């Protein structure tokens, strides 16, 4: 148990270290009283629901016995149902493809943008913050705008592609089984760029200017400077925002639900939309909970990866 330096200092310098002190008791009680409301809240509305979800995934719950009546234990039956459902397999695969490709593209683009906007040129600061406005816009709104941009009849994307001669007949991006998921991946890249860009910029700003000057004196070109100065120092930030982006993208629901609801014919179904449908449209509470717990296990793995990444970063720093 670590001791709070403030308390040790108090007891060492200002208060008799031995004996009972009302003041100290009051002080330590106050600390707990300050934390208590938040802990009670999180216990009741965050920890308990997670346990509830876990229990739910081993029970047979439908609308009929959701609030009243017996809830029989069914062991792993819900998980078996979930795994046996061919939609689960395809949704899991889509989730992986969606997450990995969106994050990979997003990182490459954001890194290129960060290297550009980290330079000091007039307007760089304003431009940096303009990207962040994308972060303030609700995903529902962005998704709605992209639905129109990608619309087959009046979408701008088709017009541009047609004008460039890349397309002879209109493409119905979001209602084409082969194109819905790739289109959503590109929209997700747009959604994710502000977060990654801001993080990478904060990492780049932290690199001491002297290192570049020294490298320039040694005659290092742009690529050598990136390879031997920027990249090694940016890598911890890069790794951390990569893992965080993986987590956010893997659990994201809003974009896919607004744009396609997982369709057409499940072509863009991901695990969160599958779980939502199971619970709130098909009322298969146990199966939905089972799917969500599987999502949770994946996210937990990613979170451990994140903690390991940042731990190593701190150790190296």
């Amino acid at each position, binding site marked *: 148990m670590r001791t709070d330096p403030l308390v040790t200092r108090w007891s060492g310098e200002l208060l008799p270290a031995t004996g009972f002190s009302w003041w100290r008791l*009051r002080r330590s009680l106050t*600390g707990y009283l300050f934390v208590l409301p938040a*802990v009670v809240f999180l216990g009741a509305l965050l920890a308990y629901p997670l346990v509830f979800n876990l229990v739910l995934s081993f029970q047979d719950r439908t609308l009929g016995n959701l*609030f009243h009546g017996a809830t029989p234990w069914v062991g792993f039956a819900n998980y078996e149902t979930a795994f046996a459902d061919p939609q689960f397999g395809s949704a899991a695969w889509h989730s992986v493809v969606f997450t990995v490709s969106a994050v990979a593209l997003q990182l490459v683009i954001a890194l290129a943008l960060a290297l*550009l906007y980290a330079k000091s040129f007039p307007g760089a600061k304003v431009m940096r913050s303009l990207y962040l*406005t994308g972060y*303030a816009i609700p995903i529902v709104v962005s998704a709605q705008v992209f639905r129109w*941009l990608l619309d087959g009849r009046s979408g701008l994307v088709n017009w541009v592609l047609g004008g460039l001669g890349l397309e002879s007949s209109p493409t119905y991006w979001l209602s084409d089984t082969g194109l819905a998921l790739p289109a959503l991946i590109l929209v997700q890249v747009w959604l994710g760029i502000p977060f990654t860009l801001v993080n990478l910029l904060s990492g780049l700003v932290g690199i001491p200017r002297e290192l570049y000057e020294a490298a320039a004196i040694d005659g290092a070109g742009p690529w050598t400077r990136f390879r031997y100065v920027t990249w090694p120092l940016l890598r911890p930030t890069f790794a951390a925002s990569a893992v*965080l982006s993986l987590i956010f993208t893997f659990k994201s*629901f809003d974009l896919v639900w607004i744009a396609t609801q997982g369709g057409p014919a499940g072509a863009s179904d991901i695990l969160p939309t599958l779980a939502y449908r199971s619970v709130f449209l098909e009322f298969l509470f146990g199966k939905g909970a089972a799917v969500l717990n599987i999502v949770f296990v994946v996210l937990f793995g990613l979170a451990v990866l994140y903690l390991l990444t940042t731990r190593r970063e701190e150790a190296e720093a």
Partner: protein
Amino acid sequence: MTRRLPFVVGLVLVAAYLFPVYWMITASFKSDADIRAVPPQLIPLAPTPATWTSRIFGDPRVLHYVLNSAIVATGTMILSVALAAPAAYALARHRIRGRSVILFFCLSSLMFPSIMLATPLFVIFSRLHLTDSYLGLILADTTLALPYAIVLLRPTFATIPRELVEAATIDGCSPVRTFLQVALPLAKPGVATVAVLSFLWGWGDLVFALTLATDDSKRLVTTGLWGFFGANTSDWSGAMAFSTVGMAVPLVVFLLSQRFVVSGVTSGGLKG
């Protein structure tokens, strides 16, 4: 010369990035025929407020949804700050048993999908008659805003000079007064960050609004947008006008508080 090239490239790229936003706003001022015009009108040739007067200002539900969203987002902001600030202060400055457990739990909650909380909260809130209520939505949104707020605020309180807190205590300030009158004012930038991010979170939430408030009287802008312009819409002008409404409030909040938000985003982000 070398400074002009990055400027031009940077400007072109940021314009391209924000183009969808521009396209959305201009579309709301186009007539239905102009929306479908070939070639598309980059600048509306005959801008008309028709969509705004009929679909936005002419439909009382829109204002109702905006007020609902404002209530839920403000409530989430107040509740998150009210619970997180004292907790973060105590976790930074008091000896709390289980501190690392609390912090680990808060940190790991960054990965909980809201859809995962929606099922149990739906069952719990149904029993407590909290579905279709502002309070239910505020509580649900706070579940994920609060841990993030604690993680973000704790370092802010930890950087307050000890001497200030000690001096207040020696002067006979009670711990509560020390917190409210000494620590809290000094942590203002951090508190502002947390307040803005919880507001944006409450405003943008779709999952809880979709699952916990199905009644039209408690519908929010996000679910309203989805309800009006669902899967089969072709009223793009109306959809873009409503989208502009959904964007306007968070954007204004964001622009007014930008310097606070950047630091918040870099320490983990809270979205989706």
